[in-house]
């Protein structure tokens, strides 16, 4: 790169004196670095540095206000902590049950929103995407009001058709379902929009060709739409996986991780350790365990979904 640049400069206008010719050369070499400097500096200060520091922190334990080096103690403690495993299990359940359901729903939604038969498509697109831009806390509060057992809207509607009050947030199983419900409401539209964008790049001729070959709606969906969506599906799967593993706001606001830890996620458990128990070292260890987990799952998903044509 430098070599080419130098050569270009040598070939520059012969009238220019050698000394002044050097300056733009130097400037040009420096300029890109200057341009990326603010971003790099911000990234280093607010991302790299905390990330590195929380690793150092994860090797320490605070005793009487003094940080003591304890090596991998916090990590071995993780393996032996039933609540960490509960949190991991809860998160895994959401990952295995809620994410596939939501993505299937999002795919269906994307196809529907792409359909020329639908009138007012942009209104619907906007409507389904809206939850995404709703503040997490606001939507958490709205759901907790809707789902309240005693005076929630949902139970009031159910009582209208003679159904007993459902303990949406206060029964271990229902609380899990409610959490899944809230997540689906919030993120389906977002994923649908990503899928929709990809859907619009699938050439119409492919569908024409398929119909000429006698393919029905289902067959053309399976053999044209789905393969066309593959990269977008990979993206949404990976993003949803990462998001689910880090899930925090919804359980924090809706249930606080309860009842009896039925909706305790890794994110909530991390928060509790750091800000309720002041155990920053252990919380950092949880964060690193989580990061490793996300890395592994990401690689697996790229292998499974990404390689094929």
């Amino acid at each position, binding site marked *: 790169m430098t070599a080419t640049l130098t050569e270009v400069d040598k070939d520059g206008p012969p009238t220019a004196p050698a000394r002044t010719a050097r300056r733009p050369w130097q400037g040009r070499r420096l300029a890109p670095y200057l341009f990326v400097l603010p971003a790099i500096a911000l990234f280093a200060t607010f991302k790299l*540095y905390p990330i590195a*520091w929380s690793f150092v922190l994860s090797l320490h334990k605070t005793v009487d206000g003094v940080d003591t080096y304890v090596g991998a103690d916090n990590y071995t403690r993780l393996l032996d902590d039933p609540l960490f495993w509960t949190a991991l299990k809860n998160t895994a359940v959401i990952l295995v049950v809620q994410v596939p359901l939501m993505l299937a729903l999002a795919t269906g939604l994307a196809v529907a929103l792409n359909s020329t038969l639908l009138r007012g498509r942009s209104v619907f697109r906007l409507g389904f995407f809206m939850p995404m831009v709703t503040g997490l806390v606001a939507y958490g509060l709205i759901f907790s009001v809707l789902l309240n057992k005693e005076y929630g809207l949902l139970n009031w509607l159910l009582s209208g058709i003679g159904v007993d009050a459902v303990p949406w947030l206060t029964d271990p199983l229902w609380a899990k379902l409610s959490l899944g419900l809230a997540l689906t409401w919030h993120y389906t539209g977002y994923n649908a929009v990503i899928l929709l964008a990809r859907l619009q790049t699938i050439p119409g001729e492919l569908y024409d060709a398929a119909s000429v070959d006698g393919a029905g709606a289902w067959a053309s969906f399976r053999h044209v739409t789905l393969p066309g969506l593959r990269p977008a599906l990979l993206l949404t799967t990976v993003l949803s996986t990462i998001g689910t593993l880090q899930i925090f706001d919804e359980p924090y606001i809706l249930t606080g991780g309860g009842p009896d830890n039925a909706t305790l996620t890794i994110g909530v458990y991390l928060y509790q350790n750091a800000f309720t128990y*002041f155990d920053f070292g252990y919380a950092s260890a949880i964060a690193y365990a989580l990061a490793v987990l996300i890395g592994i799952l990401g690689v697996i998903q790229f292998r499974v979904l990404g390689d094929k044509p």
Partner: protein
Amino acid sequence: MDMERRRVLRMGGALAAGAGLTGLTACSGSGDTGAAGSAGAKDKGAITVWSWQGPAAQMKALVPEFNKKFPDIEVTVQDIGNPAIWDKITTAMGAGGSGLADVLHIGVDYLPGYVEKFPNGLADLGELGADRYKDAFARGLWETVSGKGGKVSALPWEANSAGFYYRADIFEEAGVDADALGTWDDAIEAGKKIKEKTGTHLLGIDKPASEADAANFFQLLLQLEGTFYFNSDGDITLDSPEAVRAMTIIKTMNDAGLVSDLAGGWTALETSVKKGTAAVLPWPTWFGGVIEDLVPEESGKWKVRLPPAVRRGGTNAATVNSTHLAVAGSSKNQAAAWTFIEYVLTRPASQVKIYKNQGIAPALMKAYDDEVFHAPSTFFSGQKKGEIFYEALRAPSPAFNYTSDYARALKVVTDAQTKVLLKGADPATVLKAAAGQLAKQTGRKVVR
């Protein structure tokens, strides 16, 4: 499940990380803060006060009077809200005190944690002259605010005794004499009668533990037995026979259908009071004012007494919690902050005024000389409510050791209680498991 989620979590990580860093730097710079701490004039400066709802309003109301005496101290009282204030103090202390107020209102449940995890987080009030008030407060409270090495971290404000607020009209309808209840076993029998005759539950508990204080009643029973989650050495006493007994009382009540579910925490409790779903509210001193605010039209239907004992002949007085004012170690106006604290907490007139407006029971014993504590209350059927709780405060009450791991203890306790109430688990088994888990988390010993 997207970029935003990641950002939020990263932010959390960054906060945690930043907190740890400044924790270190705070330690190395502690000499400086200490020296600067005693600086600042006693009657000059601008101070900020952090508190929540009622108490914040009361302090605000005291400021004009205070300024007549100390015109050069500018006081800003901020209502941070409870429980938001705890996270806010934690983060600010983690950041070496940057952004922290000068005066902090801290509950007994959080004080030991702050003192232990942030040794320089709170100023030593002893240096500012707090020791002269050693005997001015209710028994057991000085042990709570003073720690190792004679450091005084805070000054007591309110001292709440265990109470037993009840609907006299419902008791009467069921033909039960509330004054005759000697023990909680008696109360359970009475509860069965009340349920049968009036359909009202005996009391309410937040069964799924939607809020951290869902185990209030369990804790109250323990305190009536003179025990707690930890003993004075800081060892775990969660599966002591006393604890098992307390949880068994709760289970018996629940199995008999006497416990209404307060799922949802505070709002559910308010609804329950308004709807009258429970005949008894086993809440401390401060709750009387809340009832008066919630159901003013039920004046004369309510009564109050101290709770029944757990065992026959046992005590029915327990100081269940207290709150305190402290000065931040990072404050540049510690002397002025102390002047304000002294004015609010050690001057009987201030405390009497606060009690009149908000019903916050003072820890300052001298305040009880005022007649307001000895006047009959129309709302509570002509009873002298102030005197009832004053008697409780004067009774011997052990200092309960909350330790820096109270929040963790609370978590395992509420989980255990939820298992008992929702899944019918055996009290001894769940408490044993809870004690074991707490020991593992904290490195403390379990003793019985």
